[in-house]
């Protein structure tokens, strides 16, 4: 490790490690849009895992202030993968049969 010898060194080191705690920082923040991907048995078989990964990838890419996490089944086996979008201080919106195109659409509309 090269020693930190200036304010600039500190900032560049910080930028290199910031990502490490990003998931935690977002989780701690209040007022973020939360996207919950249902991961129950049928959800996983319907491709929920790849949808979850795609969300994470896109949120990262676009640097959106959105928290993405997995959740339990929502009892809608016929519409898996299902996704719940929780907006701060509003009713959640549920989306069924989510595919990659729908992910882009959701992020376009609710991501900030």
């Amino acid at each position: 490790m090269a020693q930190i010898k200036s304010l600039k060194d500190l900032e560049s080191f910080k930028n290199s490690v910031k990502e490490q705690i990003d998931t935690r920082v977002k989780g701690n923040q209040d007022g973020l849009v939360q996207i919950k991907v249902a991961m129950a048995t049928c959800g996983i078989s319907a491709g929920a895992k790849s949808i979850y990964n795609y969300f994470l990838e896109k949120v990262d890419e676009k640097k959106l202030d959105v928290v993405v996490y997995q959740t339990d089944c929502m009892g809608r086996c016929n519409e898996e993968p299902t996704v719940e979008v929780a907006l701060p201080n509003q009713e959640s919106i549920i989306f069924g049969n989510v595919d990659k195109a729908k992910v882009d659409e959701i992020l376009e509309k609710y991501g900030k």
Partner: protein
Amino acid sequence: MAKFKMHILVCGGTGCTASKSQEIADRLKSNLLEKGLENEVQVILTGCFGFCEKGPIVKIMPDNTFYTEVKPEDAQEIIEEHIIKGRKVTRLLYTDPDKKEHVADAKHMGFYKKQLRIALRNCGFIDPENIGEYIACDGYAAVAKCLTEMTPEQVINEIKLSGLRGRGGGGFPTGMKWEIASKNHADQKYVVCNADEGDPGAFMDRSILEGDPHSIIEAMTINGYAIGATKGLVYIRAEYPLAIHRLQVAIAQAREYGVLGNNLFGTDFNFDIELRYGAGAFVCGEETALIHSMEGKRGEPTFKPPFPAQSGYLQKPTNVNNVETYANIPIIILKGANWFNKIGTEKSKGTKVFALAGQINNVGLIEVPMGITLREVIYEIGGGIKGGRQFKAVQTGGPSGGCLTEKHLDTPIDYDNLIAAGSMMGSGGMVVMDETSCMVAIAKFYLEFTCEESCGKCSPCRIGNKRMLEILDKITKGNGTMEDLENLKNLAGVIKDTALCGLGQTSPNPILSTLTNFWDEYVEHVQDKKCRAGACKSLMRYVIDQSVCVGCTACARNCPVNAIQGEKKTPHTINLELCIKCGTCIEKCKFNAISIQ
């Protein structure tokens, strides 16, 4: 480094470590490895979450799921259910004491809702043994700013403007203390962090050192720059092995990364820190005693002045601050004095960490803004009195403090209000008591502690406190007189006025405040030989109700001292002279004929 989708935070504080949190972390890691998830999910050992009584704590991020009382055997289920299927392990969730419902995540727990974590900002959030995580959370940015953009005077002014006061008990304005030390010129000055934490039941300093050691290193460096000192010492009690370990790791990392040592941030400022170990005597937390102890002398207080800022360690100007005081420094520099001084009350700014304990549903370490009321702390954060019993009093300030009662429930908590109510902030002990606590016994408990810890150097404290303890003992045994109560008051006043150090000067506080707030209870002990809380064993009388007793002899046969007489099938009686109040007879009587009066 790859970005992890989920973080599993496992508490690595002293409490949870004692209940196997390291093993939980290991098992979580090996389960992740088995499932091939080691690059997607990260396991981190953090500092204390403050919820130690329900530990070990495991928290999942980013969804904030808060698991309590986790066992190593639960690791597999957490991975298979929560991590893979997104299904919370309900049985491990915290249960709301009121609604008896599981609470899904930390943000909905009453315990955390009213808290404001400034000094504890990184505790339970980062890996304390990884300087990278501290830096990722703006660590060392404050000291960098001070050294490269601010003059020592500007640093001191910022701290003065923030209104920060010492968290070690006295509440002395920190900026003013730094200013005095900066104005005393000498070839060498010292910065000392007081991590002695002798208050029984207090563990905020330990938790900060265990959970966020770099913040203390950073703050001490800032302190050194502000007053012109190049050497820092942490006086820490040897009974804190984990805190010592984390500090040592942190100091080594800070040196390795160049944020501790010579020419910090490219300037000509040098600073380094060493540890000094204390044997754990309460009086060694007093700053003059602490300095003597660090010099290898007996840990006894000496008269002030001279204050440490004039002549301290090795007779050099020395600035002593408490751990929690220091934990506030970096964030004040970064966010500014005007951010900090908007939190709290007029004369008490910021937050205070309390060790909430006693007859309350949620016990633990909490950080609240100054000015919060006792009612909010007890009923919202603490979740109310255990078993739905009646609130009676709350003790703050430990052996130097006093008891607050019902009438203080809505008083905003700050330094001055607590003193006006006959107690004090102290280092942050807060013990909640219900109707089953006897206030005379509580006063006696604290006085016993003081007597044990008195260094014996001056007679008011050494002899006076002994005398007061004898009187209290007499009262709890039912032999007290009204004259004893008067003597108690007088003695307390004399000790307060004549003792040499803070220990003796404040030792009568628990007695004075209970005499004031619970005078009736003292009188009851003296005149009626009665303890309404049923706590003073000597005052309990076991009585058999003659109209209920059927004479089955069960009690008499089981009494260990043969204190019960009576013929078969006729009501029995207890000879109170012989009875040792063991309670056996009550347990044995199937007819509920025996009661305590």
